[in-house]
């Protein structure tokens, strides 16, 4: 009985852990670096939005004067815009690379025989 339990556990573990390896092999992701950079920028953008929100709350709770807040808010918005531009540029680069790769694939692939 004890042996049976251990055997069942081993079988279940091997099946569960090995499942991704049984499908079609997926190699290293060529877009990994771009995706990681995008994720970093998205995180930075969210943090910037949080900063804008915090500055607004600081102004509403009296920690920042209206003038100081306007100055800081403009600074933060400029930084947020810079981040959005970088995100757009990265997306555009990534899209262009995908289009190029798709075109190259269509050129090298043999024509379908109908």
């Amino acid at each position: 009985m004890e042996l049976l339990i251990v055997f069942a556990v081993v079988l279940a573990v091997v099946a569960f852990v090995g499942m991704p390896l049984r499908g079609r092999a997926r190699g290293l992701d060529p877009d990994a670096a771009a995706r990681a950079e995008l994720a970093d920028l998205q995180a930075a953008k969210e943090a910037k939005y949080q900063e804008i929100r915090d500055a607004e709350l600081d102004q509403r709770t009296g920690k920042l004067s209206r003038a100081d807040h306007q100055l800081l808010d403009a600074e933060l918005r400029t930084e947020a815009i810079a981040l959005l531009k970088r995100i757009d540029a990265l997306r555009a680069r990534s899209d262009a690379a995908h289009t190029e790769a798709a075109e190259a694939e269509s050129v090298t692939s043999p024509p379908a025989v109908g």
Partner: protein
Amino acid sequence: MATVGRALLIVAFAVALYGVGASLYGAFRGGHAWVDSGRRAVYALAGVLTLAFAIMEIAFLRSDFSFNVVATHSSTTTPTFYKATAAWSSQEGSLLLWVWLLSIWSSLALLITRRRVREVAPVATAVLMTFGAFFLMLTLFWANPFESLAQVPQEGTGLNPLLRHPAMMFHPPMLYSGYTLFSIPFAFAIGALVTRRLNAEWIVSTRRFALGAWLCLGIGIVLGARWSYTELGWGGYWAWDPVENASLLPWLTGTAFIHSIMIQERRGMLKVWNASLVLATGTLAILGTFLVRSGILDSIHAFGASTLGIPFLILIGAMVLGSVGLVTWRRADLRSEHQLDSLFSREAVFLLQNLILVALAFVVWWGTFFPLISEAVTGTRASVGPPWFDKYTVPLAFALVALSGIGPLIPWRRLTMASVRRGFVLPGAAALLTVLALLLVPGAWQEPKAAAFAGVVAFVLTSVGQELWRGMRARQASAREPAPVALAGVVRRNRRRYGGYVVHAGFAVLLLGVAVSSSFQHAKDVTLRPGQTARVDGFDIRYVRATARAEAEKISLGAVLDVSKDGKQVATLRTTRGFYPSQDISQGIVGRFFGGERESEVGLRAGFGRDIWTVIAPDLAPLTPIIERGNRTFRTAMVGIMSKPDGDQQQAVAQLYALRDAAVTAVARRWVTSPWPADFRFIVSPLATWIWIGAIITFLGGLLALWPAPATARRRVTAGYAARVARELARTTQ
């Protein structure tokens, strides 16, 4: 089932090793399928270890003494509640608990981040599984909880009486949750350093785990302090014991980390500092685990001498060298993206607070390891006591509390004179008024440090109250809501900010309790007969009567005390000393019932103003001649029974045991029928209860900060700012 348990540990060890290999191969060569498989190995590890842990728990609950760990740490007379907790009173069981919790928290972290930090996660998985493999190696080869006994004993040794306390049910799991949760940001930091993804994403993905670790470790520390206060019978809650200090170290550096990551998230600054802090915190968490188990430092909380020290030292050495090497190797990638705008900004306050926390951690580390350091340098082991720790930690804690009040008043990036006037006037006035009011309290100025501390705490509480009030008013102005709804609304939308403020307030209250209760404490050791009275800090404490109870589990000798002040009854206190039976038969048939482990039940009257605490230490010397006579009588009777034929022996032994139980009860009753003087310790501590109230406030604040904002609200807020910035973007590109 011990065989199944042992086999499961082997399976778990193999799964952990596979997880390390598959994750690293997937990260650098094999691709996603291997990474996915490595992540699944963590889930599988959690499943296998859950089964193993369940087997151990069932063995404890069923008092299955074929398990060595059950026979040596539990007994049939142990209450069910404590049978369940006895599992982690042993070296073996606690190691299994550690690695089980690691597998659970790692699974949760990897499940949550499965679509994020894709480059960092495989390396982090490998690090987490390395920890898992290390602890499983210890359970397999050094301290196996599934070791079985060839000869199964009828009865177990029983749980250490000192551990029979409700706080002990949760203290170790909370501490280990703290330690294992800190492994997660540690592992992700290693992953970020190796893959050079050192921006904010890994921090955003793991900050909740860092906060969760801080919360669990903090709760664990406070539960340990509460246990010490109500169980150990010395009247204190913190003794600067090496094991207590070991848990405080990662908590201090972890506190610094959860503050300074906010600066990296917002400004891309302090990357070297944050990486170093989280790596130090992860290493200190393992150091804490090592100190409890190695026996290198004397502590009431340690498991005693063991052979686990060497493998732990190798792991800690690898963690320290690896961390220093990685940070040095990646120093170019860890450069700050911005500079500090002003020395008078919230960032600067955070930085100063970080330095104080690290200084505190260094003081605690130095004092804890001083016996080893002094032995290495001079050949003589010398240790430092509470006065040494107090000398350095009190001023640092004072500065820390002051900064926790200043921080919320200062905006990010820069502070102007106008905002100083707006923010600091009220808290400053509250601090001044508190100190002036204390002038009127007789005796308060005998302890100027405590009075100054009270002033700083008033500053912190007023600054937090002011922030909540202003937030509520701002919300009322914009949303036109009633005050309670507006307050709840502003807190709900800014949980991290206001949760942090509540933590600051709670921590200030906690430290006020510590400062006042230790500065103005009155303690007295007296010997009293029933009817006699002692006077402590104006309270008359009368020893009313002795109490005795003989049970299968223990014999309790105690006292009922009446506390009054100026003729008015204030409280009735009950304190007992429990004597557990010893397994050592050389102490005699009667004597062994008084010769085992002992524990104290404290008599405590806790109040908002002061705690009145007492403990009894009955002297058993007057009982010794009676116990010895009983031993002789029963030994002679037993010899007589042994000479009888087998059939009569069993019945005679049963009769003898019934007589023995009656004799033991009668001996214990002499404490009541012919009472003799007993030693008492009385302590009157003002504001001691506020330590626990402060801790509860602190942890509620932590929970508030940890609680995720509702997804829809978060999306709405983000969308609002995104639209605003997008409009701005459109204008700038026209």
